[in-house]
């Protein structure tokens, strides 16, 4: 994971295992319901992790529970990179947006077949097509 802020973790006395404050588990239940809606009706769910109360242990716990799955994707944009990781539960994706200094801007769990941000957007496709046509025209004229 790139550019994660430094946690100031409150640790249990054994010093190894971060204390979990029980905030990851309810979120996993929410993810479960979202997966059921995705399968039943194709309904997508986005959870803004900034809106969820999270202790340092909670976020580690959540990430550990979600694990990593088959797909990891990196997106480069003019306002910084983003990373979309499929978790070990297919259809559950963890999306982190970074600024150009690799600080986290926002973080979402998306329950979807593919995060919207990975799809090529018609506006960009149109622009790319224009530039390809231009390039081919130049080569034909050469």
């Amino acid at each position, binding site marked *: 994971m790139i550019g994660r*802020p*430094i*946690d*100031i973790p*409150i*640790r*249990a*006395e054994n010093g190894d295992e971060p*204390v979990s*404050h*029980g*905030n990851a*588990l*309810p*979120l996993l*239940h*929410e993810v479960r319901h979202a997966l059921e809606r995705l399968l039943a009706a194709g309904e997508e769910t*986005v*959870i*803004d992790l*900034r*809106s*969820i*109360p*999270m*202790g*340092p*242990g*909670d976020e580690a716990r959540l990430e550990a529970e979600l694990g990593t799955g088959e797909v990891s994707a990196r*997106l480069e*944009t*003019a*306002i*910084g990179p*983003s990373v979309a990781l499929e978790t070990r539960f297919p259809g559950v994706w963890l999306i982190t*947006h970074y*600024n*150009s*200094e690799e*600080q*986290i*801007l*926002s973080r*979402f769990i998306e329950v979807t077949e593919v995060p*919207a*941000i990975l799809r090529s*957007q*018609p*506006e*960009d496709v149109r622009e790319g097509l224009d530039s390809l046509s231009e390039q081919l025209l130049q080569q034909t004229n050469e």
Partner: protein
Amino acid sequence: MSYDKTLGEALRRQGVSRRGFMKFCATTASLMALPPSMVPAIAAALEQARRPSVIWLSFQECTGCTESLTRSHSPTVEGLILGQISLDYHHTLQAAADSAAEHAREEAMKENYGKYLLIVDGSIPVGNPGYSTIAGISNKDMLLETAKGAAAIVSVGTCAAYGGIPKANPNPTGAVAVSDLIKDKPIINVPGCPPIPVVITGVLAHYLTFGTIPELDDAGRPKVFYGETIHDRCYRRPFYDKGLFAESFDDEGARKGWCLFKLGCKAPVTYNACATTKWNAGTSFPIQSGHGCIGCSEPNFWDLGGFYKALSVPNDPVTLVAGAAAAAGVAAGAAMAMRNRKAKADAKSKHQTVTIDDLEK
């Protein structure tokens, strides 16, 4: 950035792809504490948004609010928002001084009369105007004059919103809040000492996006950021519910991250977004570093009786509150508590023995 270009056009010319714009919108929605389902509406609005005129007045203040905002000004999403609303006048940040700066303010007022957004930080001394003047004009006069042509006013920081530390006993300057002087304009209070940078940006983003001011609570604060107490959204809330408290700053409870209520934490009576938005790009907030909330976004927080004095001591919360949580049939957790208001309300109505209603909003 010119006035006649939309934000969509401006970003596109800066080489921001549609995906980049989507990321900008998702982050802006998060900034505004709006649900991700609103992203398409936000995208449609932001794409057409045009740069508003903004005047920023700093009165009796410590520059902490301006610092808070400008410290978040890296080439980021916040940066893009600030770039789009870039200020016509900000005395502290402006290179020009005195009459030249005043000329800029007067020009901006004239050109955008009735349409500009006025941002104020600092309280206004009315006891002795000489305590704070800009280019020889008293704070009160400048506020009254500039407010006339404003579409709305944002009071940034607890000083502008409620008087703040200058107004603390014995209030030597006769400091008052913006809302004490202006009665005929919409005023958005963004309190905090200082306010969370992304909350300031979030309010500005709301204005930029929708051209309107967000829904406010009784204290004039945007509900979306100040709708819940820090206690209700605190990750340590489950320890409170189980009756596990730190009793001193170096005991076992403190080391294990238990609830800081008994050490004077004001989270149960403080409305702010610290527990979820956090500070320094989401790194931490006071409670996470082991110190109780001092309630800095509440009116008169300085005079509320001591930062280390407990609000009140809950009656045997172990059996009463934990029992209620168990009855609701859910895993205890602040996230769950927040997201299961109804279940909790049901549980409460069945358990009349719960006596700490004042803390259980």
